[in-house]
């Protein structure tokens, strides 16, 4: 799933964040405005050339959903922000290893975020896992534009509805595995059901989820 929006290649020198008087200064607005018209894959190519403003746009596009995922998994803001920060820095370091034939930039960043969160959840230090989500509300700054919000909201509702419609026992193992960071063996112990049943529920649940989604969502290519 690659963003193929038409865009003009930037001609200016790389716009990088600078530190002035001890303060981090964002990339210049002109560069950011141009970069915001570029496809994710083009931004990744620029990030490989260490253009920080290109990566800043990638953060703007995908940092929010990455945080939503980390927050759901970790259960508190501080841990979720640590996960996202780790994941974004890892993405910056490894942007040269991104391969478009293996999926979209969004999925690549979410995959790194997911793995970072799983690592933390599976570590002994945070093994108590599920904590109640914080109630603190953070002012929403830098939200996506209204069209994007409506589009994402529609997608979110469709996926939520589809997830709600699969059998409870299948949804349960999917949520424990994906958001809880539990392995299929741990889920088998936790729910006291045979391992084979857990594996089958995961596979069948995902297949049903896919079948109930619109073709655009189910086949992102």
């Amino acid at each position, binding site marked *: 799933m690659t963003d193929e929006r038409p865009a003009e290649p930037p001609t200016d020198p790389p716009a990088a964040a600078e530190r002035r008087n001890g303060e981090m200064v964002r990339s210049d607005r002109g560069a950011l405005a141009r970069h915001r018209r570029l496809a994710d894959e083009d931004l990744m190519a*620029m990030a490989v050339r260490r253009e920080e403003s290109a990566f800043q746009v990638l953060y703007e596009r995908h940092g929010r959903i990455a945080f939503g995922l980390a927050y759901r998994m970790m259960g508190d803001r501080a841990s979720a922000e640590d996960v996202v920060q780790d994941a974004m820095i890892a993405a910056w370091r490894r942007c040269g290893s991104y391969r478009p034939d293996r999926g979209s930039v969004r999925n690549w960043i979410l995959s790194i975020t997911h793995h970072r969160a799983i690592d933390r959840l599976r570590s002994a230090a945070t093994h108590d896992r599920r904590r109640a989500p914080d109630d603190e509300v953070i002012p929403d700054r830098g939200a996506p534009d209204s069209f994007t919000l409506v589009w994402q909201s529609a997608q979110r509702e469709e996926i939520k509805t589809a997830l709600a419609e699969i059998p409870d026992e299948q949804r349960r193992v999917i949520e424990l595995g994906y958001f809880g960071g539990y392995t299929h063996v741990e889920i088998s112990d936790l729910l006291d059901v045979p391992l084979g049943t857990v594996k089958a529920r995961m596979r069948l649940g995902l297949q049903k989820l896919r079948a109930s989604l619109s073709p655009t969502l189910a086949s992102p290519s």
Partner: protein
Amino acid sequence: MTPFPDFTDAPRAIDHDEVIDLAGAFALGALTSGDAAAVDAHLNGCRRCAIQVEPLVDVAFLLPMTCDDVAPSPDLETRVLAAIHAENEAMGPIPANVASLDEHRRRRRPSLRAVGAVAAAVVAVAVGTIALERGVGTTGGGTRTVDAEQAADLGNARVALVSSRDGLRLQADGLAAAPDGKSWVVWARHGQGGLENLGTVSPDAAHRASFAVPGDASEILITAESNPRTRAATSPPAVDLTNT
């Protein structure tokens, strides 16, 4: 790059039936790292299984959309940008052979999701990461000159993956000898799988070294090892080159 959770022996071999059995758990990230590496290694070489597993992976990537839409604190963006800026400043100049955006667009494949495309004619471009004991520096691509002050163990080394008619080679200039009692061991990673010990590399009198590596490796690493025949790396990589 603190922990190396996937820094293990080569993944175990598994058959088609087991891959399909584990497909759901694999897509959800609900396998141990060893099992996940085994499935991934199988999928990299088995189109038949990949066709069945990829749709489940795609669906799993939609699950974050079901999370509540909550905004991170504004400070997070500042922290992330400050961190990458600090790393950028600590790194040397951008290598001349890193593709520009225009070059990148010319190279882009017509089908982004084509799996198993033959890449024999594609000149390998090495993108490297130099991971040091005291931190990680990242290159934008091509080659990386390691600052001797940063990496006393490596010397002032310039390390690159070079593609030629004879295949892919790891080449190093200015490579120091391995630390006392240790050898530089070269590792290859295939796909997302585990690491394969390819053997040791030593600099010649001119501090140069060249080492043939498999062209289909996704990643080439060098570590300092007391046992040159070890099957599992015991130290962080001094060199980590991604073969794209």
